[in-house]
């Protein structure tokens, strides 16, 4: 290895050669459209994902209107309702949350936080975004296809997904959905390889793995998991496409459709469920782990305190990532699979609660004896803990096989997964946007609007999903476009449904304040400077804000310490940037740097 001389300011001095001319983009198109700069790609990903999120938000309004006021809105018939449910679910899980955390935050933060100039394969990175864009285009196109989008539920269970009793089953909907997913997975694989290889290969000098910010650890682990999990969905999609278009019987047993025997035989509907959830459960953590990582950094920065138990946090992330591959069938306790699987999957599922609980403890122990600044990002981080703990604990109901039996497929499940992988990660996304917007644009988001956005979103989401558990406990099934008359459902439950709908409308409308804030602050926000939160991690130490192509100007930073040197005793300020030389933590008495 070449011994690179260290500059006095903690930078690697570049050899004296001119900036390579071909490296930088020269035209508007290569700078903003077919850009190879990870930061531009990140913004493209985030913009498209947030746009899809707005579509999904409107779909959720339409669903809630039907559930809160059944029969009032005649255009929401059963067909339309199931199409809205399906598209809302698939959009949010895959095209919004996965794309935003990995494609958006991953692209922006990984190179900056590990001290790289860019992703290691910039051209592939560009392709990744445009293929994602194509996947979104195909997905949205299904709204305009004959028969409309698929209404099979986001789980797409066959045979229902490809038969005539389901919207889009014998039309274009399901085909476009499957093709869109396959395209998405191809695009994601390009991005995911980039994120993993960049973390492993392009870290700045001194940035050991155990000095990386937890944000990078979370995104890195999630990307690695996604590379392993998405192929299961890919083959499932290929097989179902064959079943739908070529008449194969991968998932189709002998069956009778609306009185007519079908020429199918021997396929297994359960096989698809195993493939789907082999992807689908890790997917939950693909969304959760980046959120875990990001929220750790938000809490640490805004509480001016080192993250508590850093090494335990890293190991917990990895343990959760690994365990999440052996819990998938807890989605299938009442699927008719061999019931003895229940013992195994209930045990693995509840074991995951242990590393997850460790993370929660360490977040709140970071607050303990901190110097807590209740900034907007910090408020979102606190709200994340509330909703995540709530949703995580109800997961202990659903994971514990026999408790799942009465609750499975009821509104309890809907409330649980929205709380834990809907509301909680989205609160982190909001917190993260308020936190990093100054780096991306050079300006702060408006604080007052941010607080309004925060309180309505947090309290509203809690008021929507907390009572919803009790509808499920009572026995109201999910995926009913009209509850109708059920002897065991009292009138008060319908009132509760109407209440939930009204709150959902208010919370949704408040997101417009957020969108407005994003655009308004671009021009009118307060000037942020390079490091408005006085944070330690490398992205705040760039010579220019917003960072230009190549991030670091002439010299790449050198890392001297971990990411959490806040309030170090004896230091002259309450944070020590990672690239600042000087007393390391070893001399302050702590053990591992």
């Amino acid at each position: 290895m070449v011994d690179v001389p260290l500059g006095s300011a903690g930078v690697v001095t570049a050899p004296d050669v001119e900036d390579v001319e071909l490296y930088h983009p020269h035209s508007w198109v290569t700078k903003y459209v077919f850009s190879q700069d990870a930061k531009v790609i990140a913004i493209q990903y985030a913009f498209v994902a947030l746009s899809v999120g707005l579509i999904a938000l409107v779909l959720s309004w339409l669903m809630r209107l039907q559930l809160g006021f059944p029969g009032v809105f005649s255009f929401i018939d059963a067909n339309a309702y199931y199409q809205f449910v399906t598209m809302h679910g698939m959009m949010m899980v895959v095209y919004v949350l996965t794309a935003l955390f990995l494609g958006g935050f991953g692209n922006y933060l990984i190179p900056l936080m590990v001290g790289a100039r860019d992703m290691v394969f910039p051209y592939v990175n560009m392709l990744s975004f445009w293929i994602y864009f194509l996947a979104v285009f195909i997905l949205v196109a299904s709204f305009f296809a004959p028969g409309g989008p698929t209404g099979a539920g986001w789980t797409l269970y066959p045979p229902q997904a490809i038969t005539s009793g389901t919207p889009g089953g014998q039309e274009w909907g399901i085909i476009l959905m499957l093709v869109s997913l396959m395209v998405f997975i191809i695009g994601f694989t390009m991005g995911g390889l980039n994120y993993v290889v960049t973390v492993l290969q392009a870290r700045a000098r001194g940035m050991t793995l155990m000095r990386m910010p937890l944000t990078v650890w979370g995104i890195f682990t999630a990307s690695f998991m996604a590379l392993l999990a998405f192929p299961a969905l890919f083959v499932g999609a290929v097989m179902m496409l064959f079943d739908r278009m070529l008449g194969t019987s991968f998932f189709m047993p002998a069956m009778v459709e609306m009185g007519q025997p079908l020429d199918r035989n021997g396929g297994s509907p359960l096989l698809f469920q195993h493939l789907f959830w082999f992807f689908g459960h890790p997917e939950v953590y693909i969304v959760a782990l980046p959120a875990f990582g990001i929220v750790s950094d938000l809490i640490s920065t805004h509480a001016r305190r080192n993250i508590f138990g850093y090494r335990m946090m890293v190991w917990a992330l990895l343990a959760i990532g690994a365990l999440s591959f052996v819990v998938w069938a807890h989605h299938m306790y009442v699927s008719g699979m061999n019931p003895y699987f229940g013992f195994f999957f209930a045990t693995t599922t509840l074991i995951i609660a242990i590393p997850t609980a460790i993370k929660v403890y360490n977040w709140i122990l970071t607050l303990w004896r901190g110097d807590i600044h209740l900034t907007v990002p910090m408020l979102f981080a606190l709200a994340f803990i509330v909703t995540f703990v709530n949703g995580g604990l109800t997961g202990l109901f659903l994971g514990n096989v026999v408790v799942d039996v009465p609750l499975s497929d009821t509104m309890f499940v809907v409330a649980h997964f929205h709380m834990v992988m809907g509301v909680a990660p989205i609160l982190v996304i909001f917190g993260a946007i308020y936190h990093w917007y100054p780096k991306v644009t050079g300006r702060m988001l408006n604080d007052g609007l941010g607080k309004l956005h925060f309180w309505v979103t947090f309290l509203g989401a809690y008021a929507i999903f907390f009572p919803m558990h009790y509808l499920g406990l009572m026995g109201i099934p999910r995926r009913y476009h009209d509850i109708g008359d059920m002897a065991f459902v009292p009138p008060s439950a319908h009132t509760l449904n109407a209440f939930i709908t009204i709150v959902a409308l208010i919370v949704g409308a408040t997101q417009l304040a957020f969108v407005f804030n994003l655009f308004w602050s671009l021009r009118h926000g307060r000037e942020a400077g390079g490091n408005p939160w006085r944070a330690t991690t490398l992205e705040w130490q760039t010579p220019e804000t917003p960072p230009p192509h190549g991030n670091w100007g002439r010299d790449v930073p050198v890392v001297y310490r971990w990411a959490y040197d806040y309030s170090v005793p004896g230091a002259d300020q309450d944070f020590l940037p990672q690239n600042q030389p000087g007393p390391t933590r070893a001399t302050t008495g702590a053990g591992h740097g």
Partner: protein
Amino acid sequence: MAVALILVLIAVGSVVFHLVSPWWWTPIASNWRYIDNTIIITFWITGAVFVAVILFMAYCVYRFRHQAGRQAHYEPENKRLEWWLTIVTGVGVAAMLAPGLFVWQQFITVPDDATDIEIFGQQWQWSFRLPGPDGQLATSDTRLISPDNPLGINRDDPKSQDDVVIEGGELHLPVNRPVKALLRSADVLHDFYVPEFRAKMDLVPGQVSFIWFTPTRTGTFEILCAELCGVGHPQMRGKVIVQEESDYQAWLQDKAPTSFARLTPDAMSGTAVPD
């Protein structure tokens, strides 16, 4: 201050909501009281953890809020504390998992004296088949389904002669007698769900799944489909009527004319009318 107060209100409010809300499970009508008990244990443990975590957060937000001159405590880790918390969490998890697995063992172990019945789903109605006096169901196959054999029962099986078929109607069951329900679907996934029984299981085309329970209370209960099965999913309803043994037998006698034997051409000649 306000933030800490709101956090306290969320913790306390959630508990109060849990205690006073009118929305709670239906009175149980089967032997699965154990499931309810396990849920109650889980509510206690998780509720305590939730309140403890949120209140601790509220305390920190109040006690360690930023003030001039405050400096955070620098302490990267505390091995002792971390291990203690891990162990306590492990114990709590075990306290929920152990009863859960114990009850699951019961849930999947069908008692020897359970009577086989069949629950049959198709888009979008429930049908049922009860064994006649022989107490046994005949074999069946989806490929045998036809307008005059809606459940695809194997006519060559002698046990088919006395099977009672109820199409799109109501399931009658005697109280306090365990039943093993064999679940079949003609087309897509369905799920047999009676909230008062707590039990639930998917009907999967191409295979026979099962569930067992003992109705413990007479009355009429709603059967819902709990697995999305197409646009008619919410309309796929049925009724289960749990009766005293004598009422049940009287009903069964009444139903004898609709037994499978009566539906078959051979039986029309009148030799094999079941008792």
